């Protein structure tokens, strides 16, 4: 739409009816009957959880992607709450986001699914504009928009609470803005607004899913190329251009990306289910959870302190140094012997047996002196188990599961000439950042066995039944650099006051509280969260509907999203087969054509005028490049992949098809109109055919469903009746 203002106040509005109509159609196909089916569909289970955590403002980690996507979905949740309040359906407020089985009210379902659907609809006009920016005709733009409009898989994916449509929207937006910027006359400064918007939408795309990174890189590459040409142009002061581009395309996206995390961390301030993955310091900054326990603890660990020691390794599970009244078996299953002393393990739950007392080897008392004598880096300590009063000990006996390392035990004197070796040296690993004094939560400590200079280590292996399947703790001599399994932090801490064993046991059973507060900065939290998200391994398991990238091109698989509990009505992620075929055809045609052109140009034969050639190249980098960066990286990924991962790449192919048709029409063959029309008609027909599987209604009979199974490998379900 174009809007011109003239004096005296006359408003002339020019509206592109084509564009308007397309937008309306897009909204109609994506938004109609959005609240049907009124049930949780496929991955909505997964995203629904996160939305409800947002509503409760509970901290969580989702390693699959940065937080912006979840936040956008959560906006839907807030809208839901607002709407519910407006219509005074109070029940809805509390249930709509928490329940996972069935959305109770149509309103909530509608509002939760609204934003992805709107993004999905807006992709259609975006594509139209994008084609125009490539300096192609309106017909071509119309063709591309139609392909996108009538693509069943895109419709299905946008109609639910899923993130692909949002990702595609931001990707297309960033390219559109960049092209606007590039095509604008060089004199105007307003064009930098477009560049800024392009950078922002790149950040948004990356913020929704990490896959966005690759299209961002493509855009950066193209921008670099354009800038490189600018540098060669001696009339322009290139420094200014470069700086502006760097700010808009590098700095702004980076800041925005951090900003998503800032919002994420400031919205989610309560402790929740994923706390345990984070460091103690991080946990302490969340409300509830650890901070409730550690609030008011003394900060400096002193001789006589009662502490729980948490392993810094979050693999395989976070756990605390633990011991209990059970000894190592005299002989293990494989015939090796043990010291038969008391077991020392790592236990993943809070337990009174996790308490240890730090003892000065030179003193008898187990209480903190006044004033407290803090433990420093390099001090020698003994560790006494609170409940059993055994000393933490290690010796030259092979550990139960990792025979290359030393066994760690609670020392029992069996009178078998095995003297106690229970001195440990405290090494504070991060003493440069923190201090020489051992601090609760903040200090990462290594305990070095004085006699053998082995280091207390969580081996990560589970003990068999005799060890109650707890985790094995060993002392390892091969201390290679910094490993999280070697370092321990004090989590709960109090100054011991009771001298007698009975009193002490009572004291250990009582909950802790005394007073200090530990704050960590936003940057520390951001870096830790980001690092955890990138390194936490998802369990690799195959899903019933997972597939491999090669199957996507030919659409060998589908995903059954939803099946009506009693009838044959069902929703599937199945693309429009005709569109996919046409898209694949145009991809190979483009590559072939490009090869021929390149070889002939190299031999000095110019088939195309220069501007047509540069247009052909531009179409190539946008469409083929966009397809490649959104598709090829999946071959290197080792995670569970689904057909919907292909949708962003597919959108770029849909841009290519009409562009290539126009190119062929104007430079090679002139009688393609009929073909194009026939293709459009068949695209529409196959869209109509698959509509029942896209919208979940009308219900089809078993025979009709059987007819829709165009490929042997598709899983379409029908009830035997």
């Amino acid at each position: 739409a174009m809007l011109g203002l003239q004096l005296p106040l006359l408003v002339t509005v020019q509206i592109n009816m084509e564009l308007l109509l397309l937008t309306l159609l897009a909204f109609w196909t994506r938004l109609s009957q959005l609240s049907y089916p009124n049930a949780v569909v496929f991955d909505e289970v997964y995203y629904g959880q996160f939305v409800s955590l947002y509503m409760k403002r509970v901290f969580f980690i989702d390693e699959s992607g940065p937080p912006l996507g979840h936040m956008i979905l959560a906006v839907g949740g807030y809208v839901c709450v607002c709407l519910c309040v407006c219509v005074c359906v109070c029940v809805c407020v509390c249930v709509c986001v928490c329940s996972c089985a069935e959305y109770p009210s149509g309103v909530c379902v509608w509002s939760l699914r609204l934003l992805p659907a709107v993004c999905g609809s807006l992709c259609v006009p975006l594509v139209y504009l994008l084609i125009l920016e490539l300096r192609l005709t309106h017909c071509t733009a119309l063709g591309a928009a139609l392909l996108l409009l009538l693509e069943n898989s895109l419709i299905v994916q946008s109609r639910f609470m899923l993130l692909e449509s949002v990702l595609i929207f931001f990707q297309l937006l960033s390219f559109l803005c960049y092209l606007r910027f590039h095509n604008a006359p060089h004199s105007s400064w307003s064009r930098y607004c477009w560049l800024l918007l392009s950078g922002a939408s790149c950040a948004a795309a990356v913020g929704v899913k990490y896959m966005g990174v690759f299209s961002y890189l493509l855009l950066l590459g193209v921008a670099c190329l354009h800038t490189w040409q600018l540098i060669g142009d001696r009339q322009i002061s290139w420094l200014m251009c470069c700086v502006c581009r760097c700010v808009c395309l590098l700095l702004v996206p980076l800041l925005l990306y951090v900003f998503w995390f800032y919002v994420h961390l400031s919205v989610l301030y309560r402790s929740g289910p994923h706390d345990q993955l984070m460091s103690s310091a991080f946990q302490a900054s969340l409300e509830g959870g650890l901070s409730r326990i550690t609030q008011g603890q003394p900060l400096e660990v002193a001789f006589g302190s009662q502490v729980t020691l948490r392993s810094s390794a979050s693999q395989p599970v976070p756990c605390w140094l633990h011991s209990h009244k059970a000894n190592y078996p005299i002989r293990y299953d494989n015939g090796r012997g043990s010291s038969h002393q008391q077991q020392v393990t790592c236990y993943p739950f809070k337990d009174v047996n996790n308490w240890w007392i730090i003892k000065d080897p030179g003193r008898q008392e187990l209480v903190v002196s006044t004033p407290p004598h803090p433990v420093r880096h390099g001090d020698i300590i003994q560790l006494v188990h609170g409940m059993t009063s055994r000393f933490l000990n290690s010796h030259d006996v092979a550990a139960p599961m990792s025979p290359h390392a030393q066994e760690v035990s609670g020392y029992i004197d069996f009178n078998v000439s095995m003297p106690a070796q229970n001195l440990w040296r405290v090494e504070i690993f991060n003493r440069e950042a923190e201090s020489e004094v051992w601090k609760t939560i903040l200090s990462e400590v290594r305990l070095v066995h004085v006699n053998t200079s082995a280091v207390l280590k969580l081996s990560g292996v589970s003990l068999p039944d005799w060890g109650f399947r707890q985790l094995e703790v060993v002392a390892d001599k091969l201390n290679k650099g910094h490993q999280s399994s070697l370092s321990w932090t004090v989590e709960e801490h109090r100054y011991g006051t009771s001298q007698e064993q009975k009193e002490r046991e009572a004291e250990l059973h009582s909950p802790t509280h005394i007073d200090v507060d530990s704050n960590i900065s936003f940057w520390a939290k951001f870096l830790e969260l980001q690092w955890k998200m990138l390194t936490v391994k998802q369990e690799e398991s195959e899903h019933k509907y997972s597939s491999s990238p090669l199957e996507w091109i030919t659409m060998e698989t589908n995903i059954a999203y939803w099946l009506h509990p009693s009838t044959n009505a069902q929703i599937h992620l199945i693309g429009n087969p005709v569109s996919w075929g046409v898209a694949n055809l145009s991809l190979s045609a483009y590559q072939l054509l490009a090869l021929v052109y390149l070889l002939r140009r190299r031999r000095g034969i110019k088939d195309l005028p220069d501007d047509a050639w540069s247009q052909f190249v531009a179409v190539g980098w946008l469409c083929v490049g966009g397809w490649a960066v959104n598709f090829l990286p999946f071959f290197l990924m080792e995670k569970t992949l689904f057909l919907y991962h292909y949708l962003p790449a597919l959108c770029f192919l849909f841009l290519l098809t009409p562009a290539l048709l126009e190119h062929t029409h104007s430079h090679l063959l002139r009688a393609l109109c009929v073909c194009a029309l026939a293709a459009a008609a068949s695209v529409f027909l196959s869209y109509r055919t698959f509509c029942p599987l896209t919208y979940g209604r009308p219900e089809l009979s078993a025979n009709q469903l059987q007819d829709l199974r165009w490929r042997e490998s598709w899983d379409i379900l029908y009830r035997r009746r």
Partner: protein
Amino acid sequence: MAKGECTTQWSKTEDTCSTLRNRKAFLSSEKQQQDSQPKDGDNSQTAGHSSKDGTQSSNGTSAQWTDRGTDPPRKETHSSVLLLLVTVLSFSTRLYKIMEPAHVCWDETHFGKMGSYYINRTFFFDVHPPLGKMLIGLAGYVTGYDGTFPFIKPGDKYEHHNYWGMRGFCAVLGSFLPVFAYLIVLELSQSRTAALITATLLIFDTGCITISQYILLDPILMFFIMGAVLSMVKFKQQTHRPFSAPWWLWLVLTGVNLAGALGVKFVGLFVILLVGLNTAWDLWGLLGNLHLSLVDIAKHFLARVVGLILLPLFLYVTIFAIHFVVLNKSGPGDGFFSSAFQSRLIGNNLHNASMPEYLAYGSTITVKNLRIAGGYLHSHWHLYPEGVGAKQQQVTAYLHKDYNNLWLVHRQDENNSEKASQSGAPDLVRHGDIIRLEHKETTRNLHSHLHEAPLTKKHFQVTGYGINATGDANDLWQVEVCGGRKGDLVKVLRSKVRFLHRATGCVLYSSGKTLPKWGWEQVEVTCSPYLKETPSSQWSIEDHINPKLPNISLSLLKPHFLEILLESHIVMIRGNSGLKPKDNEMNSKPWHWPINYQGLRFSGVNETEYRVYLLGNPVVWWINLASLGLYVIMVAVASVALQRGVPLDQRRRGRLHFCGLRGGGLLLLGWLLHYAPFYTMGRILYYHHYFPAMLFSSMLTGITLHILLQSTDFLLRPPYSYWLQKVGQMLLLFSVLYSFYLFHPLSYGMRGPLAHEPASAMAGLRWMDSWEF
């Protein structure tokens, strides 16, 4: 700074708390040290001095020449003197102390063993192509090693066995690396200074020395890689006279070296890629040359196809042909291969096998999957763990021969008692019959049900169920001979059989995925509801024992050579990707490598043992790392300047373009190709995987530092800039030599206390905590 602190920390702890045990160890080792120390030190010191003098003088003179230009004959003699010097130094550093230690070090246990297999002609399986091990075997054979040493584990003493030939062969090939590097850089940069810098870095790198001195594949691999690059560069030099004899010679040599590199390890693919890209670029340039007719271009193209594709392919296939001809006895690798393949091997039970021809009820059989390296249907006394389908006995596919692969064939309604009472010739199994397969060892029936399979969730789980032949309806399978009709007999070894599950209609399937630890890393077996006929769902009967039937000698169809080739490749690739890091092992990460983060223990751990530690000379490696960054910056600045049209004088421009961009670019690409792919590999990685990339990096360093030193004339006027250049060269040479003097015990072996103790020969040299010496 960190280093200083670390050492003080160590010494402090030693002072405060060194115990009696420590002292004792120290005393005992001191004596040995006294024995070995002086001789050691003297030797290397004198060697160091003489070499230093030698290179110093030659280095200086060469620099003079490059700057002033001279008469050709003297130049010729001098360059050959330099080459000779590089060669002598290289050989002497690599061959020094070649016999020590006199025990098996690290991977010698594998490659030495495989060398022996060639001498004994025993068939084995390895994840690498055969050329490297064949050459090792040949070297051993020629030098009188008889193949009897078992190479059981690292640390085993060689005693009277003749191992010097194999080590010496590797060391000789390894000694060529600095020479090749010298020639490549000389060719690329036309500067002897750059070439000498490269050669110095490589000759005095402890890592390169160590890795060349043992029976390993790496020196052989790197020899071929460098050979290929050298021939490629030489070939390029012949551009102006195409199709002449030297042109053909270098083309063919490139091809031969490529085949060699690929024949040793699949890492050779990277150098093939490098040569391929370079050739494509070359051809692209030829295509743009409008003076050449299309026919000429076609000739060029065909010549390269022949020299760089067909010839290497032919050689590579030949290597495998020799491999299969030489190894004709049954050995540890049989089970990985198909029945037809095994029948070739002398001593295998399928070699000239005789067994009942048609499958019968009551027979004991083994069932082999027809997928390549599909494995035998297997079960054992272990259950599926909690949470993986039903908790019943595991059924897997296993690649090795084992008594747990044996199954009994029963009729659907037949019980044990009936079987016992049966007499006379047993009935034969026919297409369409319904049978029950009983696992011989555990007496459980092959069973499937509607639970998800452990890995392939679309399929159903297959278990062992029931005991002593009592089971349920889910134990019944229908036999189907592929391409057969109802009533057809099942031929042992030749029929492709499918087992259809009676109750659910699915087909017995081997997915090829490796089960986790609970499944002993064997291959998953499932029941697939997709009934397409694929090798994964087809099985053959391999062993067939039935005393009631006459044995008939079966001569199998001899497998075609290409089939064997394909089969062994698939087995190798699968084996390679199956090398996953174990939990206990410290996994080396690719980013560790360029910073020399952590080495590899070749021999010895304790204070009393003879220790060799594979670690690059840190000074050399860090210079390399810095030069990489420097090169990128230099190229960026230079190309912006060129693009912007900054006026540069002709000489500098030529130098920058010719050797900086073209030569350096090639080497940078080589480094990238040999390094970046490791980031995407799922298999276990080791430090020594970086060495090919390190060679490229060192060559790039030579060029980069040379250009940097030449650029001193930006700063100072001619006579001073020339002196500065000299000082820079001296400094570089001195630092490399001195660091080599410091770190040489890493390669040539050390005894006595570890580096954190002050009495150690390496005291104070543990600059990074992660080094383990």
